[in-house]
């Protein structure tokens, strides 16, 4: 540590945006005498090509190992300057851009003296950081150009079809015997109004006509998964054989399970009380008996135990209500609901059509749910109509319970195998904000109902999007670990362990949010080891290590200490 670097400083006037407030001559004087600063130039606009060329040529000097630029914020041009310099062969690890515009001249325009003092501090801090920055450890990764897709529902099939068309070899595994997922159980699919065979046939053709581009393992069982982005090893059994494959990325498209009502509304005890999927089965078999049908929405969901909306069941019931009328136009159909959820330009039409065709909608209250009456068969449903404040009794032959999609029973195990988080309801969690397919584990993507209940078309869309994400990761050839990310350009500073100082206490292992730290035996003692591919440089480990033995080389405790000292150097 503390390796002395010769820093070249460049200050940017930004055509007056900086120099109008900050006295750059004074800053230059203060910095020139600063230890470690080799030279200092003031330029008009560091972000423009001509200044950039000057900058690049000046650092060809082999003794000038670091560059500190006083310019604008990282989000303005700062990061772009770094990238542009990288194209000229200057490693971003050697460039510190200090924000003296957004962070100084623009917010202290009324206080030029204070702004100048602050700019000096900020630049000294930059110099301190750059002097104490060590080159990060890197490993190069050549991603395996094959992808593992778990689940052959609409999401998984779509992902596989997109990838195989890009020339990527895909391993498609499903525990079910035939592809298609839940849609196999559905007679006609809304809103496309086709059968599941028609729905997925084109994509399946792509897959199965790909001449070995897709290895499909139906009826298979996942055993284990190891590794990290670019190189995972997955083992599973298919029939009597066990397979172990290596892939660069993983797409989890396991969908969700249909929640069974578990005795609710006398399901299982009373003839004529069905779930939505049981009704689909009757449609498929052409055995619809009775023409007085009552749908009950939100069964076992949007309550305290499952406080989410499953998003598909309203539209499924609207579709089914109309299908009942298709079979018998004289049928009497009621939908008992709490709210009807059919957003968007396409789905709302189902609601309007159902109303126009005579389906009657009745709102019930969560704490006064409908009651199903009957001795052996369904006779009627009693419900408190929330809009008219009246009890109603509706004669019925069939009661259809709209149950939600819920996480699979083995979701915990799958999450553990692939290093995924689960949200409060048990679905696989994705990264926050702008990264809707990426998970905590780099290189593992989730799509379809595994992530959140969706209709077929959204599952397809997400499957295709996940394919693009996986492709992004595996198609760029050999990459440094710090670049092996699909949600950001570059990770700064991956953690490094000083094995002499590490006592193997395991604190870092316990806190690492990416499972990047692990304890391994090194010369007889347990030592922390960092998986550079998983590490994202968050620094959690650094702040809990009792021995200071794990550090971010680009942002070490030493560097921060020196920066703090730099703040106090003048005027105290």
């Amino acid at each position, binding site marked *: 540590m503390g390796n002395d670097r010769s820093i070249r400083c460049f200050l940017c006037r930004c055509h007056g945006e900086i120099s109008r407030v900050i006295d750059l001559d004074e800053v230059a004087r203060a910095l020139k005498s600063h230890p470690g600063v080799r030279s200092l130039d003031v330029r008009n606009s560091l972000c423009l090509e001509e200044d950039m060329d000057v900058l690049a040529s000046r650092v060809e000097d082999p003794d000038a190992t670091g560059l500190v630029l006083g310019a604008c*914020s*990282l*989000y*303005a041009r700062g990061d772009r300057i770094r990238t542009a310099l990288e194209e000229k062969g200057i490693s971003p690890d050697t460039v510190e851009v200090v*924000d003296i*515009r*957004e*962070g*100084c001249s*623009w*917010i*202290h*325009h*009324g*206080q030029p003296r*204070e*702004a100048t*003092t*602050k700019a000096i*501090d*900020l630049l000294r*801090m930059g110099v301190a950081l750059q002097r104490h920055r060590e080159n990060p450890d890197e490993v190069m990764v050549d991603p395996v150009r094959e992808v593992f897709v778990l689940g052959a529902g609409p999401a998984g099939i779509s992902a596989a079809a997109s990838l195989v068309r890009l020339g990527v070899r895909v391993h498609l595994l499903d525990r079910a015997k035939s592809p298609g997922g839940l849609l196999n159980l559905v007679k006609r699919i809304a809103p496309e109004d086709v059968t599941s065979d028609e729905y997925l046939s084109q994509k399946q053709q792509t897959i199965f006509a790909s001449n070995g581009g897709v290895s499909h393992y139906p009826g298979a069982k996942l055993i284990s998964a190891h590794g990290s982005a670019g190189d995972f090893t997955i083992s599973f059994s298919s029939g009597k054989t066990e397979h172990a494959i290596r892939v660069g990325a993983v797409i989890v498209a396991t969908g969700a399970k249909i929640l069974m009502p578990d005795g609710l509304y006398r399901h299982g005890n009373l003839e004529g009380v069905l779930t939505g999927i049981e009704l689909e089965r009757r449609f498929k078999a052409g055995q619809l008996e009775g023409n007085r049908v009552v749908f009950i929405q939100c069964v076992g969901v949007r309550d305290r135990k499952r406080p989410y909306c499953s998003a598909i069941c309203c539209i499924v019931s609207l579709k089914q209500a109309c299908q009942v009328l298709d079979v018998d136009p004289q049928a009497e159909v009621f939908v008992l609901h709490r709210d009807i959820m059919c957003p968007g330009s396409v789905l709302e039409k189902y609601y309007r059509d159902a109303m126009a065709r005579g389906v009657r909608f009745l709102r019930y209250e969560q704490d006064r749910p409908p009651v199903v009456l009957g001795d052996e068969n369904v006779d009627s449903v009693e419900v408190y109509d929330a809009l008219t404040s009246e009890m109603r009794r509706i004669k019925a032959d069939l009661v259809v319970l709209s149950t939600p999609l819920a996480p699979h029973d083995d979701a915990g195990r799958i999450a553990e195998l692939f290093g995924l*988080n689960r949200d409060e309801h048990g679905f696989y969690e994705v*990264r*926050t*904000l702008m990264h809707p397919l990426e998970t*905590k584990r780099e290189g593992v993507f989730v799509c379809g109902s595994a992530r959140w209940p969706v209709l077929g078309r959204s599952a397809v869309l997400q499957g295709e999007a996940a394919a693009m994400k996986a492709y992004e990761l595996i198609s760029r050839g050999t990459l440094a670990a710090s670049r092996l990310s699909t949600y950001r350009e570059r990770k*700064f*500073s991956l953690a490094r362990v000083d094995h002499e100082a590490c006592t193997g206490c395991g604190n870092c292992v316990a*806190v690492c*949010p*990416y499972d990047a730290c692990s304890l391994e035996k090194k010369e007889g003692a347990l030592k922390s080891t960092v998986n550079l591919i998983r590490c*994202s*440089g*968050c*620094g*959690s480990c*650094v*702040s*809990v290590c009792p021995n200071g033995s794990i550090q*971010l080389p680009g*942002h070490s*405790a030493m560097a*921060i*200490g020196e*920066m*703090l*000292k730099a*703040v*106090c150097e003048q*005027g*105290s």
Partner: protein
Amino acid sequence: MTDRTEDSGNIQVVLEGAGRKIVVFACTWCALIGADGAGKKRISLPATFRVIPVECISRVEADAVIRAFTSGIDGVAVMGCHLGGCRHNGANLRSARKLELLKPLLDTVGIDSRRLFTSYGTAHEYHQFAQAIESFCSQIGEMPPVSAWSRSFVRAMSARGENE
């Protein structure tokens, strides 16, 4: 606290606090964006604070906060994302717990715990950042500098820790 309605009083405070130095550890995924936004809007802010960008506030160990005070800094702000909205899979939650634990410890060594300001997701937008910085800077400006006794006491204690 300063009465915000008294403008002249406010400026007074800022000037009085001019000698103080405040360090802000700002997460690059949120507070730093707030800081950038405040800059773009050219909001006038007290010039006593210096930002140190960090990848995540989970990087800010107790030691860094203590070292700031022993180095001569009078106020430390740690500004990260919402608890639950951390880009690093909830890492900031643990960090928040540690920092909250640190506060009473600071009091016991003679450093008023109000000198450590923590913000989780409340400085993401430019006006939030500006407001938070302004009130923290004026609060520190109203307080005297950290006493020389406290600084050397903590320095001595941590030096002893290092030697043992």
